[in-house]
């Protein structure tokens, strides 16, 4: 019974972190870690981990909503903003969310079913690539930059990647700065996107709740397969997030429509988290903040515990299908009546205040600088995901230097 209560509370926290731009699951997970000693006098560590998994899976479903309806993504949803926003401006915001839900949900099912195969594969691949991890991360960075067309755009992409990387190194080594990642990512991907939206004079048309978009089964199967593989890669390589995997996945499936792209990125985002649990079990490595906290609480997980966590993910993903689409309908209705500019401005104020309370003036300064950098990509016509250099460059340097 206590497990179901933990799942319910985890879902509630996941709704909060998923819907509020700038609030990440890592923040709640770290908060939980700080009181875990006290909580473990009442609950088994497994209960705390179940809470984190329920929250994280819920977050990966719901973070599509602010990305599509408000144009305010977290780092994992960067690639969904443009296609999602395009559909929003055609009155199909609900359909856009539904596509990410389809991707997340089906990719979770494929991942869980493939676990017996994925475990030995992940161990095999990891032992092969671990000695050259730094070079692979460098290759991914170069690959992302070369995806830009034309020499001028590539130079801009390189400059943004390097500046973000230097900013990342400064942020992570700054003494006395708490929750540095929240400040950094809120600026790079959250507030900067909202500021651009404010100046773009976006007029959101009346939203329809329809079933207009239908993908063929063949295309859906191809995208789910690629999404699972690309999401799995993010679980193996540190520093590579859903955005980088999305670009690589996009290359694997070739030219695809906005619809398919949303399914792909929804899937990668969720598989990214699922696979990091498998990586924790098979390699005893943490690939994201929430799993790092799980590792701190439990050190290692047994085979039974792994399956328990996967069943938690399956249960929560089933619930999240209903939950996300219900909230998306509500958003579609509400956005017709809300002043979009006031809404964006309110979120900017909220996130800025949140960062200031959490990280103090140093965090606020980091957020201001990273916001300025995050505004740059759309103005020089390059992808915003180059800002992920803030994580990729420090991790690459860690392996190479």
């Amino acid at each position, binding site marked *: 019974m206590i497990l179901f209560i933990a799942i319910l509370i985890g879902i509630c926290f996941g709704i909060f972190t998923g819907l509020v731009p700038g609030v990440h699951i890592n923040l709640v997970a770290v908060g939980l870690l700080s009181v875990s000693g006290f909580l473990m006098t009442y609950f088994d560590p497994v209960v705390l981990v179940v809470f984190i998994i329920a929250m994280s899976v819920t977050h990966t479903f719901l973070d599509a909503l602010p990305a599509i309806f408000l144009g305010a993504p977290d780092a994992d949803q960067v690639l969904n903003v443009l296609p999602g926003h395009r559909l929003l401006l055609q009155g199909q915001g609900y359909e856009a969310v539904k596509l990410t839900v389809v991707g997340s949900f089906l990719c979770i099912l494929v991942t869980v079913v493939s676990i017996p195969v994925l475990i030995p594969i992940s161990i095999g691949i990891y032992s092969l690539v671990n000695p050259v991890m730094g070079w692979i991360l460098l290759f991914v960075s170069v690959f992302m930059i070369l995806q830009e067309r034309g020499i001028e755009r590539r130079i801009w992409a390189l400059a943004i990647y390097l500046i973000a990387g230097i900013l990342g190194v400064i942020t992570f080594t700054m003494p006395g700065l708490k929750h540095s990642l929240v400040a950094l990512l809120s600026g790079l991907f959250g507030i900067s996107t909202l500021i651009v939206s404010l100046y773009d004079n976006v007029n959101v048309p009346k939203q329809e709740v329809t079933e207009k978009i239908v993908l063929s089964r063949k295309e859906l199967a191809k995208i789910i397969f690629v999404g699972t593989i690309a999401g799995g890669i993010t679980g193996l390589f540190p520093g590579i997030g859903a955005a980088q995997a999305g670009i690589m996945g996009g290359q694997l499936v070739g030219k695809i429509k906005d619809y398919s792209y949303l399914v792909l990125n929804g899937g990668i985002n969720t598989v990214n988290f699922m696979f990091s649990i498998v990586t924790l079990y098979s390699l005893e490595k943490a690939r994201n903040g929430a799993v790092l906290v799980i590792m701190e609480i439990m050190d290692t997980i047994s085979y039974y515990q792994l399956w328990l966590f996967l069943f938690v993910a399956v249960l*929560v993903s089933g619930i999240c299908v209903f939950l996300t689409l219900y909230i998306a309908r509500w958003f579609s209705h509400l956005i017709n009546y809300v002043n979009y500019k006031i809404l964006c401005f309110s979120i900017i104020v909220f996130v800025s205040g949140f960062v200031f309370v959490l990280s103090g003036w140093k965090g606020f300064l980091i957020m201001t600088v990273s916001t300025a950098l995050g505004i740059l990509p759309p103005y020089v016509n390059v992808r915003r995901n180059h800002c992920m250099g803030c994580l990729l460059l420090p991790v690459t340097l860690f392996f190479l230097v």
Partner: protein
Amino acid sequence: MREKLLYKLALICVVVGIVGLLFLSSKVETDKIDISRITLADVENDVKIEGRAAAVRNYAGVSMIDVVQEEKIKVVMFVDNVTLPEGAFIEVYGKVEEYKGKPEIIADVIKVKR
């Protein structure tokens, strides 16, 4: 994918998830083990033990407790002061470490059972 089909699949997942959880939930709690079964082969493993707190010694930044069943094991907790009732029956959750060729437990959590 039609929304009805999506909802049907989601409902199936909810049911499968609940059944899986009910089946596995009894198997996953960290098992309590006898002190006599803890050896150096368990070093770095998480364990849960129960026993009487025979002696509590507090030093600066660290407390040591002898936990007794039929055999005895030393439990170390990195806190300033542990106060336990005389002969309290306690549950300890922590990691096995080696000290001077013997296993001891670095405690994360100590619960007083009675």
